[in-house]
């Protein structure tokens, strides 16, 4: 077995050269690309971490905003409910008030209509009664009924004082007294009327007789300052006035 020192030296040199070659063509490029990949991975991880933090921050902000929105929504809902309740209460109150007002007006109008209807009915009743009474009195009235009214006139004049009589006749000398009866008086009746009136009023006047069927029965004497009415038309009018007077306060 021979040992070649040249071969030994060449192989040592070859190996050292190979060390340099592989360092240059293998280890350095591979280590560089691995380091670059690790760097990119680290950068990607850092970016991912940053993006994750951003996402978490955005998530927190979003949750905060959502909570705020929920709170605002609740507040708005509460306010809207309160406003609705108030508005509803106001509308109910207004409606109730309006209803009460309309109801009061309707009741008042009904009362007025009822009163008006009652009054109208009463008026018609009174008118009908007056009409019936007038028709009945006209059927009952006869010329002989004028005479009792003369007694009532005489009786009235007798109860007057002298001054009152003088007032009635204060200007009688200037004209005649008008005596209207429902039925024409005969000459004898006219004389009797003139005689009885002259006894109470004196002789210083003249009488002018006339017939007025609207009186129904009775007499109407027109003095210068007054009119004496003793007839059924006047009695009916008085009765109607009395009825109307009693009706008005209702």
């Amino acid at each position, binding site marked *: *077995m*021979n*040992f*070649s*020192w*040249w*071969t*030994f*030296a*060449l*192989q*040592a040199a*070859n*190996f*050292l*050269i*190979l*060390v*340099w*070659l*592989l*360092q240059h*063509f*293998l*280890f350095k*490029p*591979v*280590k*560089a*690309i*691995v380091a*670059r*990949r690790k760097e*990119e991975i680290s950068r990607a991880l850092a970016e991912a971490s940053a993006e994750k933090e951003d996402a978490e921050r955005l998530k927190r902000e979003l949750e905060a905003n959502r909570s705020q929105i929920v709170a605002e929504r609740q507040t708005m809902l509460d306010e809207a409910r309160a406003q609705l309740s108030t508005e509803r209460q106001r509308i109910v109150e207004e409606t109730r008030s309006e209803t009460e007002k309309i109801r009061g007006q309707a009741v008042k109008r009904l009362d007025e209509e009822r009163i008006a209807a009652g009054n109208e009915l009463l008026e018609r009743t009174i008118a009908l009664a007056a009409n019936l009474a007038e028709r009945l009195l006209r059927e009952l009235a006869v010329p002989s009924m004028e005479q009792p009214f003369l007694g009532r006139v005489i009786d009235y004049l007798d109860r007057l004082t002298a001054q009152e009589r003088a007032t009635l006749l204060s200007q009688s000398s200037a004209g005649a007294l008008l005596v209207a009866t429902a039925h024409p008086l005969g000459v004898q009746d006219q004389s009797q009327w003139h005689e009885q009136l002259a006894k109470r009023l004196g002789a210083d006047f003249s009488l002018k007789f006339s017939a007025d069927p609207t009186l129904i029965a009775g007499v109407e004497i027109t003095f210068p300052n007054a009119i004496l009415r003793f007839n059924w038309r006047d009695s009916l009018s008085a009765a109607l006035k009395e009825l109307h007077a009693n009706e008005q306060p209702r």
Partner: protein
Amino acid sequence: MNQSPLETAVVFHAGFVPITSAVVTTWGLMAVLTLGCWVATRALRVEAGGWQTVIETVVSGIDEQIAALLGRDAAPFLPLLGTLFIFLVVANLSGIVPGLKAPTASIETPAALASVVFLSVHFYGVRFQGLVPYLRGYLKPNPALLPLNVLSEITRSFSLAVRLFGNIMSGELVIAIVVTLAGLLVPIPFMALAMLVGLVQAYIFSVLAAVYIGGGIGVIAK
């Protein structure tokens, strides 16, 4: 077989320098490795493809193995130990190729590699510890053991070379004998065994080199 397996044939002479077949084969392997590495790494990308993944896995595996052995960053040692492992694998397996003899089957090659490792131990030891602290390490645990420590440095390098040479040379010798005696297909199991031995020896040589360097830099007890 006309030539002793313990001798290396001289292919030609460069001047007065004899160029043996081991040297020529080594040049060829260097060329193949360099060209292959240049082709494989000329267009490396961050998004690794199939071959790039294999290459990165090999380099990263060696790097991690060195780091695990030394317990520190493997960057300063990767060129030497990585090249040592890759060259040994390729050189040991080159004997399988018909007509080629593994360079490591010649004693000069393992001796040269063991010598490089021997020198590297001291280089890294001085570089990482400083000259005096490194030399002081030979006086431990007792100055009386200095001769034994020095002898140990020499003998372990010698055993490193002889172990590799013996295993590879014997494998090739066995295959040659079997081919001579039994024919063409019978040596195949022996060739497979030789491949296994070659890979194992490459690993052992590289790991022992790493251990020796670790002892030199003080991270592993001598």
